[in-house]
């Protein structure tokens, strides 16, 4: 495998040899990704109520293209972990996260999801970043709809700048989870080979 091919395999969109056309294509893909993020329903506790309030008429997630909460994780891009994660729920959380298809993002909503919150005890996982890699943390108990919107827009901004696509490999952020390619399969490049 040539160096260029290898680079393309590991660096995603940014590893392409851009000419004018592929550069714009990348922006189009990012635009599409950030303007139609579908969240997987993962409302656990009180934060779920505020998440529903954010989707409701007064704060309206629909203007960001996000009013749809998919029941099936296969159809979702974003998992907003809204609420406290108990020991019994932790494997379920991981299972749902695994079932989501790439690209996928996680917003940790509320202090219980971000760090265990006020429940520093035997029953609550002290931060969901022990289990899944988190992209944006939204503090609050519960975070009001405005705070959640701010977190969502921060995520959109990260998608727009492409920061997220590269982040995991470079920083190894979040529980050391890396998205790898299965061995022995040939990747298809998009772009103009030189």
């Amino acid at each position, binding site marked *: 495998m040539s160096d260029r091919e290898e680079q393309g395999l590991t660096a995603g969109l940014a590893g392409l040899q851009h000419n004018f056309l592929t550069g714009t294509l990348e922006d189009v893909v990012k635009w599409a990704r950030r303007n139609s993020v579908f969240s997987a329903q993962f409302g656990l506790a009180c934060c779920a109520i505020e998440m529903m309030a954010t989707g409701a008429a007064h704060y309206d997630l629909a203007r960001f293209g996000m009013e749809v909460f998919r029941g099936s994780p296969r159809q979702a891009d974003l998992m907003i972990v809204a609420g406290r994660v108990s*020991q*019994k729920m932790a494997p379920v959380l991981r299972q749902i996260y695994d079932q989501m298809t790439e690209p996928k993002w996680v917003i940790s909503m509320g202090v219980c999801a971000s760090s*265990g919150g006020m429940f*520093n*005890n*035997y029953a609550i996982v002290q931060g969901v970043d022990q289990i899944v890699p988190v992209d944006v943390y939204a503090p609050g108990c519960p975070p009001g709809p405005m705070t959640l919107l701010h977190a969502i827009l921060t995520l959109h901004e990260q998608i727009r700048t492409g920061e997220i696509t590269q982040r995991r490999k470079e920083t190894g952020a979040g529980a050391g989870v890396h998205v790898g390619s299965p061995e022995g399969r040939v990747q298809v490049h998009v772009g103009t080979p030189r």
Partner: protein
Amino acid sequence: MADTEAPEAEPPEEAATPAERHGVPVVSSRGVDVLFPAPGEYLRVVEALRGEGFDLCVDVTAVDYLTHPGRSLPEGVAPERYEVVVNLLSLEQRQRVRVRVQVPEADPTVPSLFGLYPGTEVPEREVFDMFGIAFDGHPDLTRILMPEDWEGHPLRKDYAVGRIPVQFKATGGTGR
């Protein structure tokens, strides 16, 4: 069982209490009668109360008195480590009654109230899960709140809160 009882040390507003009800010591606590059967009499007393019209079992819970052994109890009631507390309600008479059974640490088993009140299925499972007190005759005594393979009974006093050390934590854990 002894016939005399001593009133609990409480703020005023206490009526003169009968010494016994259904053959067990009773105390009046803020307008509610509290009965203290032994584990052997527990089922009989609850059945008698149900016969009196206490048809709704509001709550079954337990307390671990490991670090507070000197609580006030009527005379003739020997304190044990655990207490199972049952609250009953009579819809007709608009009255509540409470039953407190002393459960020894060596043999933490009490009869189940499931036969009398089917609504005690989940609270007894919770008491089993949190305290390790077994209920004889309960149809499905498994953990309910913790994962099935969890070890230990969290609400016992010798089970730590499980706090992880955090900087700038205001309240210490030692409390009393």
